């Protein structure tokens, strides 16, 4: 199965990426997955250009396709100004309509203090609910202090367990684009509404 990790961390190295990698490793330890990481930092200019031109650069197009074709997704962002980062949101604004429908998703976020942790529940979870993704119950937040705390590892394993269970139970439907023959399109209009 294909696991795709989207990380919106900005620094190099980034704690958001570190958290995302630990989640991905924990999923990989339970399930046979191939993991692909999409670093949004490297695509920041391409994302802005797509907003202006309406089409993705080859690198961004490939990243969007990877997300759309994934069997499971880990989406990790730093919390900025009480919510996901603008870069994170901009990327998901470009993901195809319906592309996340039914897709198992694990949400993760990082921040300076634990006071921002509920942004996961109040900002990220509704956004992915809107996109019709199936989000696992445990979302993982890591504040600076958590990196020295064994409890973080427990939360990572619980969330990763939930994601791999969900991926095994709910294979993502890979839909073929269907063409409605023209005769049917015309006939549908001729029927009274």
């Amino acid at each position, binding site marked *: 199965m294909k696991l795709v990790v989207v990380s919106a961390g900005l620094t190099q190295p980034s704690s958001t990426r570190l958290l995302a990698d630990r989640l991905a490793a924990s999923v990989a330890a339970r399930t046979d997955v191939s993991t692909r990481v999409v670093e949004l930092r490297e695509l920041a200019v391409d994302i802005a*250009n797509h*907003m202006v031109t*309406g*089409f993705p650069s080859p690198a961004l197009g490939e990243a969007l396709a990877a997300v759309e074709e994934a069997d499971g997704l880990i989406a990790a962002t730093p919390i900025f100004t009480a919510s996901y980062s603008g870069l994170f949101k901009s990327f998901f604004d470009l993901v195809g309509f319906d592309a996340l429908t039914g897709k198992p998703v694990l949400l993760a976020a990082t921040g300076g203090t634990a006071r921002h942790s509920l942004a996961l529940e109040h900002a990220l979870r509704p956004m992915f609910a809107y996109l019709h993704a199936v989000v696992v119950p445990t979302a993982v937040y890591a504040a600076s202090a958590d990196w020295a705390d064994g409890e973080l590892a427990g939360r990572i394993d619980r969330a990763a367990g939930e994601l791999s269970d969900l991926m095994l139970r709910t294979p993502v439907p890979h839909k073929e684009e269907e*063409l409605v*023959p023209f005769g049917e399109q*015309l006939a549908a209009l001729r029927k009274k509404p």
Partner: protein
Amino acid sequence: MQFGIFSVGDVTTDPTTGVTPSERERIKAMVTIALKAEEVGLDVFATGEHHNPPFVPSSPTTMLGYIAARTERLILSTATTLITTNDPVKIAEDFAMLQHLADGRVDLMMGRGNTGPVYPWFGQDIRQGIPLAIENYALLHELWRNDVVDWEGRFRTPLQGFTSTPRPLDGVPPFVWHGSIRSPEIAEQAAYYGDGFFANHIFWPASHFQRLISLYRERFAHYGHGTPEQAYVGLGGQVFMRKNSQDAVNEFRPYFDNAPVYGHGPSLEDFTEQTPLTVGSPQQVIDRTLTFREHFGDYQRQLFLMDHAGLPLKTVLEQLDLLGEIVPVLRREFAARRAPGVAEAPTHELLVASAHEKVTA
């Protein structure tokens, strides 16, 4: 193969001088550009249709009728005629009238229009865009082919015993292209009727349109209009030329950087790499344009966008002179590469001949 230009008709400030043309100047400039197109040996001039500023061409057949009176060979077309918000009865009448005045030098390109607010101004709803395009075109198609029409649909007052006048010239309706940038339904519609499909791919990578065009070709054959290679394909293009390619880049860059559609986004270099935009020497434009058939197969019509982003009229006319110099080369090179059996570009004369063949067969 036909070569021509299409104009959006935007009123845009020249970023290098700060000069903004008046509506009158822009409208007159579009006419001058169309006359120049005929003078330099191009085949087609197509105007956009818009109902909101900063665009001037709200009344295409008025403009095309005026150009028709001042030209002899040029085919007058649109890019696009809004099939969603125009009354199909009025399209049938306006373009049949134009066809008579222009002695058949008329075709048109249907488009849905992507400006949401325009729909309610004309009593429609953008969420019904595809059904409107399908139903309205079905009626237009019938109005041009049946002298007396009884009709009832979802979006328009019913018609009883209605005759659209004047009847099409020589009993042959204008050729129709369907333009779409992402909807397979429209490729399917074009294929169903055996009409043309125009892919204005100037703002997108080639890969984006390959799927739509191959769908159109395959379905054209499915509906019994010929082989996939015999389908009618038109493509957009966008070029800026100077004898010396670096001069072209330097001169065009401020227009590119401030262009309404893609300005303040990617660099000129990235955009020319990722889209059909070619800025350089005439030879570079020839080489690039010839690659289009490698992506999309042999095709019938190539339209270039030349007058936009605030380029002054004088510059546009110079560009058309250069285009006039390379088009004979493009004609020769495309002809040399064309596979046997590919359809001729549609003209009124060809349509009349083929209608005659069907009657005598």
